[in-house]
Structure formats: C-alpha cells, structure tokens
C-alpha cells in the first residue's frame, strides 16, 4: 500500500514539473529599442522652451521658445525631419511598452539607493528617485512608468559594470520632473505629458517627448546624445591593478599584488588604459595632454565645435563645473579640468572633464598611487572611490576614447588624512578565549567528580 502511494506521488510530481515547464511564460528577450531617426536628436518636443541649454545632437519641435546651443547637430522646427523623428518616437514608445516586464514595481516606488540590473521594469503608478540610484550591467534597461517620474535635487544615476546610457529607456506616461542638479542617464521618452528640467541638470541621453519640454530659468543644462560602446572588452567585477613603475629614486620594498582589494563601488572592466611612464608626454599650455596610441607625442588637438549657426548670434553658455561635486565634500586637490573631493566617510570623488567641447566616449582611468580604477564614460565623469588610500600621493587621470589619441591629465597631488573616529582593530587571538573555555571545562569536570566522590 505504501509503495503504491509512493509511486503515485512520484508520478504526480514528475507530471507537474513537466507540465509547468510548458505553462511557464517564455521570457521575451531583451532587445534594444529602435529610435529610428529620433536617435540623432538630443531634444525632441511638441513645444520646447529652453534657457541656457546645450545639446550635443539635433533638436526639434513644432514651436520653440529660446534657442539651445547646439554642437554636432541641427535645429528642426516643424519640418520633415522633425515629423519623421516624432513618428519614429511614437513607434519606439509603443515598442518599449510592449516589452514583457521582468519586474513589476509598485506605485510610488522610490528607486533611490537601489542597484538595478538590466530588465524591463513596469510601474503601475508614479516613480521617484529620492537619492542616487545605480544601474549595473551591460544590457538593456526599460522602465515602463504609468505615472509620473520625479527626481530629487542633486540626485545622480550611476552606471556600473558596463551599463550604457544608450541602452536605458525611461518610458513615462505622466509628467516628468528632473530637479536641479540631477545627473540623468538614458533616453527619456515622454508619451503625453510635460517634461520639466531643473537648473544645472546633465543628461547623458536624450529627452524625446510628444508633449512640452521646459527648461527652468536660468539654466544651464546639458544634453549629450550617447554613443553605444561596442568594442570595449567584457567588464569584470574584479578590477586589475596596473602597477606603474615609479620613476622616483626612492628604493621600494612595497610589492603590490596583481589584484586590487580596493572596495570600489564601481566594478570596472579590464583597463585598456595602460599607464606607461615610458610614453613621453608633450605638455602644451592646456592641462589635458594628448598622447598618441603609438607613443609618439603630439600637440594638443583643438576641438572645433561644428554647431549650425542659429538665427540669433549668442555666446556659448558656460557649463556648470564641476558637474559631479559632492554636496558634503571638501576639495583636496585640483587642476584645470580635474577636481578631487574628500568625503566625510574617507572616500574621495574624482570629477574630470575633457577639454573644450570634446565629445568622446571611452574609458576613464584613475591611478591613485598605483591602484587603478576605470569606468566607461564620455566627456565628463564623477567617480567615487569608497576607501581611498590614506596619505600623500598623486592621482593621475586618463581618458582613452574609442578611437583617437589618449588624454592624459596633469597629476594632482592629494593628502587624504587618517580617518576620524576609526574603530580600534581587533587584536585578540583565539588562544585566550580557548584558555577560558578550557578552564570552564576543567572546573565543570572537577565539580562533577567531587560530587560523585561524595555520593
């Protein structure tokens, strides 16, 4: 009888497992959203109001108030290019909303403080970004938001582990508000409600709307159309250390190992920027030095903006700098295009940008006294090292674009002080604890033996 029931149970179990395999929904493969002709636009809107707005890419609208400063792009007012882009945007929004969600969120969700992996996130209501959020992974992120999308001032969206702005899509049905000093990543696709952009906001992506887009007075804000980096190697979690042979005459007994144990927040890909002191550097007047890949020193190239002349001549608005300076940081080192900030918790923030209007995508690398960190990025970067080496040393910054010469910045000497209120290290060995345990056992044994003797 028991064996019969056992056989029946096994049979039911196997059947259920087999059947459920067919019932389980086939997960839709994540695919990039084709923006069509809208992909060249950094800013697209039905009604556009700009003030102090710089766009690296095209802009287009039916009606426009204020004229954005353009680099590598054209302004299209109610022409065929705009109409085609607007139509392609509509198709892209439909396509994005048709993707099968992999994560269902809750209305009023706050993404602040989270680290999100690639996938299709569906929110049946509003979404807030109350503090910094991290998107991690070299794949597509789609956020389907039925309600509003709001960021809090000074919020930053960070990309780690190969995540790229070109693969991030925020598809919003309700109104969108990017508060002041927001650092936004990805393509904001607004279906039917207004987008408001606060002052000092940087968008590494696009704002594509079928409604109004308004930039808050007095600006400035910067939109940069991202380029997907395909040729870079697969990111790995463990950063590798490239030890720079020192040119100093000091004898050294320090032998760093090949793997850094540095707990950097942003895992990095294998560095492609090799810091070779053998490469001779030419130092022109600018602080960013260009090094040709073959090692032949060259003069600094001059970046020539190719903006289409606008109807009203105007001067280029000065972008806010540094774009990623921490609110509670203390400046401990700087050069013309690099700033180093010390955080209260002992971390440091490195803020750097390429000279002039250089528009590049590539890999930033930071050498902190021989410990190297890298991150993919474009013309500006704000990189946090949680546990920076303590003491006095140089921080060297380099940018290796996808193609073209490497940018080497002047080394910035910094002094990171001993931490305040550090916990005293645990210097206990287990032996005195073992002595205690042994003593307890011995006393127990003696007491029980004496009791037995009395009996």
């Amino acid at each position, binding site marked *: 009888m028991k064996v019969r029931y056992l056989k029946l149970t096994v049979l039911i179990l196997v059947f259920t497992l087999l059947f459920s395999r067919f019932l389980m929904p086939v997960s839709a493969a994540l695919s990039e959203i084709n923006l069509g002709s809208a992909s060249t636009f950094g800013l697209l809107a039905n009604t556009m109001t700009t003030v102090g707005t710089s766009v690296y890419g095209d802009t287009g609208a039916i009606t426009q108030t204020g004229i954005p400063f353009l680099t590598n792009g054209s302004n299209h007012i109610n022409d065929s290019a705009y109409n085609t882009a607007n139509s392609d945007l509509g198709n892209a929004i439909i396509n994005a909303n048709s993707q099968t969600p992999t994560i269902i969120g809750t209305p009023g969700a706050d993404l602040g403080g989270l680290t999100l992996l690639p996938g299709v996130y569906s929110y049946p209501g509003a979404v807030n970004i109350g503090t910094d959020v991290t998107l991690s992974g070299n794949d597509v992120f789609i956020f389907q938001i039925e309600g509003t999308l709001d960021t809090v001032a000074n919020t930053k969206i960070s990309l780690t582990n190969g995540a790229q702005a070109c693969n991030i899509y925020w598809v919003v049905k309700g109104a969108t508000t990017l508060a002041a000093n927001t650092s936004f990543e990805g393509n904001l696709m607004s279906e039917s409600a207004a987008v408001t952009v606060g002052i000092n906001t940087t968008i590494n992506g696009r704002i594509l709307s079928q409604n109004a887009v308004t930039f808050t007075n007095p600006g400035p804000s910067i939109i940069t159309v991202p380029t997907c980096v395909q040729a870079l190697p697969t990111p790995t979690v463990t950063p590798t*250390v490239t*030890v720079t042979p*020192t040119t*100093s005459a*000091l*004898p*050294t*007994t*320090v*032998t*760093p*190992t090949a793997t850094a144990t540095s707990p950097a927040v942003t895992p990095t890909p294998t560095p492609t920027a090799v810091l070779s002191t053998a490469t001779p550097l030419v130092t022109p007047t600018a602080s960013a030095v260009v090094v040709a890949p073959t090692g032949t020193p060259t003069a600094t190239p001059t970046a020539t903006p190719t903006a289409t002349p606008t109807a009203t001549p105007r001067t280029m608005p000065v972008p806010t700098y540094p774009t990623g300076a921490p609110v509670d940081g203390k*400046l401990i*080192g700087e050069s013309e295009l690099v700033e180093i900030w010390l955080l*209260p918790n002992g971390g440091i923030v490195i803020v750097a940008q390429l000279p002039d209007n250089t528009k590049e995508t590539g890999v930033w690398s930071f050498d*902190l*006294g*021989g*410990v190297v960190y890298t991150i993919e990025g474009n013309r500006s970067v704000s990189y946090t090292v949680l*546990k920076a*080496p*303590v*003491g*006095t*040393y*140089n921080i060297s910054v380099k940018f290796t674009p996808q193609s073209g010469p490497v940018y080497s910045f002047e080394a910035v*000497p*910094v*002094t990171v*002080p*001993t*931490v305040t*209120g*550090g*916990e*005293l*290290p*645990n*210097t*206990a*060995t287990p*032996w*005195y*604890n*073992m*002595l*205690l*345990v*042994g*003593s307890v*056992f*011995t006393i127990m*044994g*003696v*007491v*029980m*033996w004496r*009791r*037995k003797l009395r*009996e």
Partner: protein
Amino acid sequence: MNNMNMKNKVKNRKRVNLISLGSLILGVFFISWAMIHIQKETAPTVYTENTNLTSNNVIQQNAFKSNSFVPVETSYPISTPNHDDILYPIRPLEGDTIGNLTIPALKQIIPIIHGTDEDELEKGIGHFSQSVLPGENNNSVLSGHRDTVFAKLGELKLGNTLIVETSAGIFTYKISAIRIVHKEDLTIIVPTDHAVLTVITCYPFHFIGAAPDRYILTADLI
C-alpha cells in the same frame, strides 16, 4: 523494585563519570593547546649586538616637532602638498610588507604588514589601512596581538624610542603617552597635525578571554 533502583543508580553514576572525565580531558586539552600557542616564539627578533639602530631621519619639509598629542579637527586647511612630500608614490595593498618596527628597549625587530585583518596580524604588526603610512605627516596606527608581537609592550616607558624602517626611510619616534582605553574608544584613531605613531594592543595582557581594553602607546616623530 530495589534491584531496579540499584541498576538505575549505577547507570547514572557511570554517566556522571563519563561526563566529568570528558570535561576534565577537554579542559586540559584546550588549556594545553592555548598555552602552547601563547608561549610559542612569535615575535621574530633579528636583533643582535651589531644591529645598527642609528636612525637617519628622512627630512620632512613640513615636519612639526611636538611632544604633545594634539588631535586636530577634520576641518583642516586645503593645501596642495609639494611632490617632495610624497614619501610613498606607490601605495601598498592589504597583505604587503611595508617595513619593520625596531624596539631597542625590548631588543625586537618585527615586520609591519599593511592591513589589520587576522591574516596580517598573524605575520607581524598590522598597519591600520585607514591611517597614513609611517613617516607621513599625520597619525600612523599600528596594532598587534598581545600574546605574540606585543607580548612585552607593557615594559616600555615614556621616552623609549620606536624605529620604523620603510621604503621611504628610517623614522624614529619617541613615546610621549601611554594610555589604557576601552576597546570601543573612537578617540584614538584620529588625524593629528604632526607625524605620530600610535601602537595598539589588547589589555590586560594576560586576561583570560576577550580582553575588554586596549593598551595605547603614542609616539612623536623626532
């Protein structure tokens, strides 16, 4: 009935015998094991009569001479140090041996390892990684086990010297303060306005169990 009771009593007695004997054996075993490790020679001393302990201090441009321990607030002035102040252009990683500590009064020379995890403390003195390296102009913190490298630390007195040798040179410190604090004291590892060496170990030195306090030596660079 009496026979049943007798049998039970015998069984219980045997059980108690086993437990008490087992406890005794275990207790003796643990005590022996612990004592062997505690007594084992763990502070490598390469100190002979011919050991040259003459200190050739590296001249630091911004070195302060002070006999007092003055912690500074975190609101230090922003200054860009000269490149000459960079004693360690390549920073060590956890587990790297960064130098030696010589204690002439105890006739000991002990290696210093970067990091204060158990892996590092097993090999010698650990350098607290969130403090500056020896010789740099701030508070450099070293720590070690009370039953190994710092077993004799209690014998040191004010005025005794501690000599640290690293890739950046040889730095001589003079002990200016000795304190005993609770193990959770957060006022020891703080920045200072001059080069200081702080040495930490557990206290009391022979406390059985986890020691509740820490023995702190503070020494100024001379």
